[in-house]
């Protein structure tokens, strides 16, 4: 009982999550995103092509122009928004919790204390594997809305994070 203290907590002296330096995703992850964008755009292009080829009512220059321009606008928006959103993402590991920040229009930060982590999964996509990247998924009891998925972490680093999390979970049992 001698060590028991119960001082008033000074709210301003608490560590501030908003002042944490977030580490960005690995720069190679952008390449993965490029590949994904390219595939998406290719599929859309093929779909439009099929539509124009089989539908004789649409085979006029004006329709070609409309479809071409919309496609270009769509491609540009997808390209830049994807890249910008990747650059907005970041994560930080503190002594007792993990933070993940993302979002283009809105900035969303999710914080998970280590003593509330249920389990951890590591996923490696086909293209991510080429660049030696992995995705970490952290599960909590809060359901899917509070689960955190962080893509584009170097595989070795991801392993380390997972190892660290598993250790922290163990210590809290």
């Amino acid at each position: 009982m001698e060590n028991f203290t119960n001082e008033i907590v000074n709210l301003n002296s608490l560590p501030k999550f908003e002042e944490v330096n977030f580490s960005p995703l690995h720069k190679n992850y952008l390449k993965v995103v490029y590949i994904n964008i390219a595939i998406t755009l290719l599929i859309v292009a093929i779909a439009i092509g099929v539509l124009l080829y089989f539908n004789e009512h649409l085979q006029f220059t004006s329709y070609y122009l409309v479809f071409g321009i919309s496609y270009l606008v769509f491609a540009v928006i997808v390209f830049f928004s994807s890249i910008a959103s990747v650059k907005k993402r970041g994560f930080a590991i503190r002594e007792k919790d993990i933070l993940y920040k993302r979002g283009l229009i809105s900035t969303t930060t999710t914080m998970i204390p280590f003593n509330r982590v249920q389990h951890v999964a590591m996923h490696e996509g086909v293209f991510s594997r080429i660049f030696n990247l992995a995705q970490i998924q952290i599960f909590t009891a809060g359901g899917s809305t509070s689960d955190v998925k962080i893509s584009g972490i170097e595989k070795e680093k991801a392993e380390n994070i997972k190892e660290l999390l598993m250790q922290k979970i163990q210590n809290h049992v």
Partner: protein
Amino acid sequence: MQIDFKSPQRQSILGIVIMFADTLQGVIRAMWAPLLIVLIKLEPEKYIIVGLSFIGIVIFVAIIAFLRYRNFTFFLDEDNQEFILSKGILNKSRINIQLSKIQQVNINQSIIQKIVGVYSLDIDTAGTDKKEISIRAIDQDLALILKERLLDFDNKEEVLLDENQEIISKENNTAKPFIKISYATLFKVGITSKYGRTIAILITFIITLYQTFKDAVDTFELDESQVDSVFEQGLGMASVMVLIFGLLVIVLLINIIRTFIKHFDFEIIKQKNSLVVTSGLLAKKNTLLNPFKVQITSFSQNFFQRKLKILDMNMKQASNSEVEDKQKKSNVIEVPGCDAEERNEILKIILGKIPEKGQEFSPNFRYLIFRILFAILVPATIVVLQIIFALENIIFYFPFILAYFVIASFLIYFGYKNYRLYSNSEFIVLKHGAWDVENEIIQPHKIQGITTKQYFWHKSSDVGHLTLHTAAGDVHFHFGNFTEIKQLVNYWLYQVETSTENWM
């Protein structure tokens, strides 16, 4: 047979068959529409092509099934007390589960698995995708041993309690109920609560009825204009009033009947540290409520209920994925129509003390903008346009339009006025609701995670949103002062991270 889960091992070799069935099922589910079209429109000369491509698909599925089988391994890391599962062909996943976090291990058998003679073993941790951790094909002996090993970890007694959550207890009759809801109270509850839900059910019912009626008219080829004119003649102002009055009576009647069926003979009995809740007219339901498992406690009251001095209480318990999918409501225990004193008694048992409302936080006026825009300005513009272009005889509808705007304004105003967050060192209380004013109480150590959100156009005005994730669902507070929210978040994180209390 030497049983050792220490090294990575595959599923039963028969797993290939299960994987094949699973994959085929997935393919058919994804492509059933085009497949059906192909089959129906099939011309005799194309039989060979279709047949060949069908065989091709089957071979392809078989290869995938084999690869899925080959890449699926699991093992038990006894040093770290972890269960590790790897899977995936192109996209590879590795899932680590701490043994202490495993809540339930279920061994099941589907029809295909029965034919092949294997079992599936699903591992359930609090709040996760069930499909995520499932071994699809395993021998029965092996499954039982693995289950034993997985659960062979200390303090599993709690799990047993969980499984017995709905028990029929006979010895309780001797114990004196500490809360008992009388018929008079049930009647009061029936006439004052859940209008919204009953009206919604009624509307769906009427729409289905109308649809059936229309179908009947169509099939018997009645002259539609005749029927329509009958309708129009009948829809005078007076009859509309009668109709609305009738609907109100029906809503109240349905409410009363439903309340009686659901909460008939409602009783709460104190039993050691937990509460036993009994109720029901047709089927008596017994539920054991463990205060530690309650994640969100809430009570609500509307204007009528305040006059009658009754309120509704809800205790939301931690829900695992299974429950979440099918019927989220089943993990909520409702106490209808208790009075303030009884509420305080229940709160004392569940939370240890009666929560005080701490520092108050109110939303920014921006909370109103979106709601006013969509509930008032947009409809108002439509009405004005209607009047200008005189598309329809608007005068007839005028009382309804007026009623709508009055009600909408009231709801928005009271929704805003009642929207408050209170926080002190022991409790977080979120008050919300325009008509049914609900107070949701959370203890900080039951928080699983916190999310903050800020749109870029709210940055300069320092406004932001907050979500608290608990094992019984999320609690939101929108349009708060972001500086205050950040301070609260830091405080709550501090509380969660230093807390030694179990969240369940």
